[in-house]
């Protein structure tokens, strides 16, 4: 809890530091806040503390996810030092809003009450609506922000309606009580509860961008400032899945058959739609947006194959995915700058010629996303498949494997561009800090793939 409070305090401090007109100060202060918050989180490990009449339970699950999100946010802030160097105004707000979004994410990992989940989702989303429109003069950024806001509030409305329906039937917001309430019907739920649960699931599915509720994500990812996109694709997705898992694990499982079928269909659709759309993307950000939808499908697979180690696999998958995605966005930023603002896949041409090490680390990161050994991405997929196959979901596992093969095509398409010659190469400039960070991420992805461990959550 102290971690959460401290994070809010630091968010406000960073916001006020904006008056000091000293950009160099912002990132260090923000990162200090995140690090202290991480230490405080880790101190609670194993305690399972409960707050506000059990509305929040900070157990190992939430701490593990919080720490994973903190690490990724620190990474994004470190990249932000370079990214925001060119931005003159409102830099403090960018950092502060991301921190505020993170507090929302914290609530989403530790709720045990539907109201708390709703609060978490809103606190996460509202800063994101602003961040997506961070480039005030850019047409596309405004479009992204507006689209995200409209569709996001629509989903929130669904979600809230769902909560109201469930409350109306069960007279409680508290998840364990909802669980006992549902259990007494033996799978034959009254329509009101069924509809309520469906609406709640739709609301969460929208946040994690599961097909068919994914339509916002490519546009929003494309239009938002790239660093914000990186934040949305990683931290927000992790938070969404933590919430989703907690919602199912604490309250809704075993799901009534129609709802479970719905979720399976959504899993399959995410894998299929994401892949098919990614195949003919020429814009790198859109490509990563669709690839994120495919990864959502794999995470859904891990989540729905209920097992003791599901949570741990889900954590591993989201973390590894984030660790590969963030530096890829950063490499993209550099290539975009080098090519004067283009976003096509062809901007990667000539990378190997100019910066061989960067091409090598890009290879590692893309291989991790594609799931090729010995990277962590492979191990993550392997563990998901272990779960789903040992639970006996053979058909969907085979389907997911076929989808993984299709994924390799577009990741290696990008790679192929990086290793081919360019007609008129533009000089790529990269700061030392960013170079080190990309290398660290690449090495981490490799090491996580070789040294296997499991966090008991």
């Amino acid at each position, binding site marked *: 809890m102290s971690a959460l409070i401290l994070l809010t305090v630091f968010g406000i401090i960073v916001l006020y530091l904006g008056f000091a007109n000293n950009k160099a100060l912002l990132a260090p202060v923000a990162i200090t806040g995140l690090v202290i918050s991480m230490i405080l989180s880790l101190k609670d490990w194993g305690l399972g503390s409960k707050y506000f009449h059990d509305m929040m339970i900070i157990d190992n699950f939430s701490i593990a996810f919080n720490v994973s999100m903190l690490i990724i946010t620190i990474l994004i802030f470190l990249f932000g030092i370079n990214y925001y160097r060119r931005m003159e105004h409102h830099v403090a707000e960018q950092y502060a809003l991301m921190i505020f979004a993170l507090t929302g994410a914290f609530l989403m990992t530790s709720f045990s009450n539907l109201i708390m989940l709703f609060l978490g989702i809103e606190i996460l989303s509202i800063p994101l609506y602003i961040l997506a429109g961070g480039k005030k003069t850019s047409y596309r950024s405004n479009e992204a922000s507006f689209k995200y806001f409209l569709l996001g509030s629509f989903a929130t409305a669904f979600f809230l309606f769902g909560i109201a329906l469930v409350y109306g039937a069960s007279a409680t917001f508290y998840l364990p009580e909802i669980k006992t309430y549902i259990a007494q019907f033996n799978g034959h739920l009254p329509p009101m509860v069924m509809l309520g649960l469906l609406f709640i699931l739709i609301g969460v599915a929208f946040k994690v961008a599961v097909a068919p509720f994914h339509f916002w994500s490519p546009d929003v990812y494309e239009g938002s400032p790239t660093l914000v996109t990186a934040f949305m694709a990683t931290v927000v997705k992790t938070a969404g899945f933590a919430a989703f898992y907690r919602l199912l694990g604490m309250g809704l499982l075993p799901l009534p058959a129609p709802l479970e079928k719905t979720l399976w269909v959504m899993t399959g659709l995410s894998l299929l739609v994401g892949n098919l759309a990614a195949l003919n993307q020429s814009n790198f950000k859109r490509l990563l947006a669709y690839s994120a939808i495919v990864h959502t499908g794999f995470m859904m697979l891990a989540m729905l194959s209920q097992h003791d*180690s599901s949570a741990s696999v889900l954590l591993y998958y989201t973390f590894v995915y984030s660790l590969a995605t963030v530096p890829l966005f950063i490499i993209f930023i550099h290539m975009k700058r080098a090519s004067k603002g283009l976003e096509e896949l062809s901007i990667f041409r000539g990378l190997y010629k100019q910066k061989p090490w960067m091409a090598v680390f890009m290879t590692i990161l893309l*291989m991790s996303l594609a799931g*090729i*050994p*010995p990277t962590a991405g*492979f191990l993550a997929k*392997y*563990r998901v*498949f*272990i779960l789903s*196959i*040992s639970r006996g979901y*053979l058909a969907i*596992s*085979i389907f997911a*494997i*076929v989808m*993984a*093969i299709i994924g*390799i*095509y577009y990741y*290696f*398409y990008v790679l*192929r561009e990086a*290793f*081919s010659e360019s007609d008129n190469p533009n000089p790529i400039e990269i700061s030392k800090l960013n170079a080190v960070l990309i290398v660290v991420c690449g090495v981490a992805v490799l090491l996580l793939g070789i040294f*296997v*461990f*499991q966090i008991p959550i």
Partner: protein
Amino acid sequence: MILLIILLIPIITGLFLLVLRDPATVRIIALTSAIVNLLITLGLIISVPSASYSVNWDNFMGTQFSLGFDGISLIMLLLTNLLFPFIILSGFTRSHVQIPVLNFLILFTQSALIGVFLAQNAFLFYIFWELTLIPVYFILLLWGGENRRAITLKFFIYTLTGSLFLLFGIIFLFQLTPGLHTTDFSAFNQLHIAAHTQTWLFWVLFIAFAIKMPVFPFHTWQPSTYTMASKQGVMILAGVLTKMGIYGALRFLFPIVPQGVIYWQNTVIIMCLIGVVYASVIAFRQTNIKKLIAFSSMAHISLMAAAMFTLNYYSTQGLLFQVISHGVTIVALFYMVHLIQERTSTLELPHMGGLKLAAPNMAILLLIIVLGSIALPLTSGFVGEFLIIMGLAKLSIWFAVFGGTTMILGAVYMLYAYQRIMLGDKNPALAKVKDIRTLDYFILIPLIAIIIILGIFPQPILNLVEVSVNSMQKLLIPANEVVTLFVR
């Protein structure tokens, strides 16, 4: 421990090469490491009856980093370490800017291949299996020929498709193991899987190997990839990578799904024999020598695959002998093709002819290699293919007839190609072609020596595989009985 040393020498040398600049030093160091590895391997074969190395990797997925070997692994190990010195040596002629990177990738491939052949755990096997693909992908992408970008992508996705099904198979077997699940081969071998499961599991496992070899309907990646690949790329692909498919099939199919093997035996043999005839006929129609050799390689590999499923003593022995023989011959052939291409700057048969007059020594060496490839008696190809066809004949005389077409059609297209390259009237365009240099002798003479020596004294290799062949036979007998009971 010795196995770990053999595994690590190439990759560590390779990483070291990356910091060097001078091409000559890089090549010498790479070559030395490959020769040292070959010597250690020979020492291992002669003097060490058994060795293993094992450390715990993790304690919740049942994976272990365990290396070990049997006769089949030894043959593969010998082949890999025998060929890589020549592959590295063949790069001494080209003056490229990125010699360190190229040699690093080659040595990386070697390490990964050794890993595949020594792994005693299916998960470890899979990791190494995929690892071989990555350096090969870059060798093809960066040093390949015309249209390389599209072809390498196709190659990569094609082979990875098979691999992912293999992964599914491994996980499926993993969750069948009793108690604390594990992916050790020893645990897999003791599984008793229901017959109807084996029939579909067979294909899940086999597809990866069928694509790698390649067997008839899964071969479409092969001709274009071989044709486009650089000299060293194609030598690695044809010489060693195809053998991975054979090794994998031996390791996975026979001990784990024996009833599946017996159930699908005839289907697969017929597929393979179709491949034999099909590839031979297409090879005959080729005008590009490299494509011709690619299809001829496919015909020989298809015969080996058919031998694998014949499941009797002769053919299994012939298969393992042929692994070495084919590897050496095909590497020599592809080297020769590239030599001809460098000298005449063409690969098209109609543009050649009369080369013998300008380069008599080249003509003689090529003739010996061609004869080895068409399995003339006293060359190594004869021993292997003779045993294989004998094995096929025991199963059905028709299989032997169609299998025998590799030898007959092989003689037809290879000799016809030889005639069109070397013989004929003096060709003014090729009159100034230089004959072979010293370096080429260093590569070709040892390879030819191996072809001939193994043709005359095949016994050492046959002894090496004897034990494994016997144990494989034992493995299949119970399965045989089960199936016959089932049919009755």
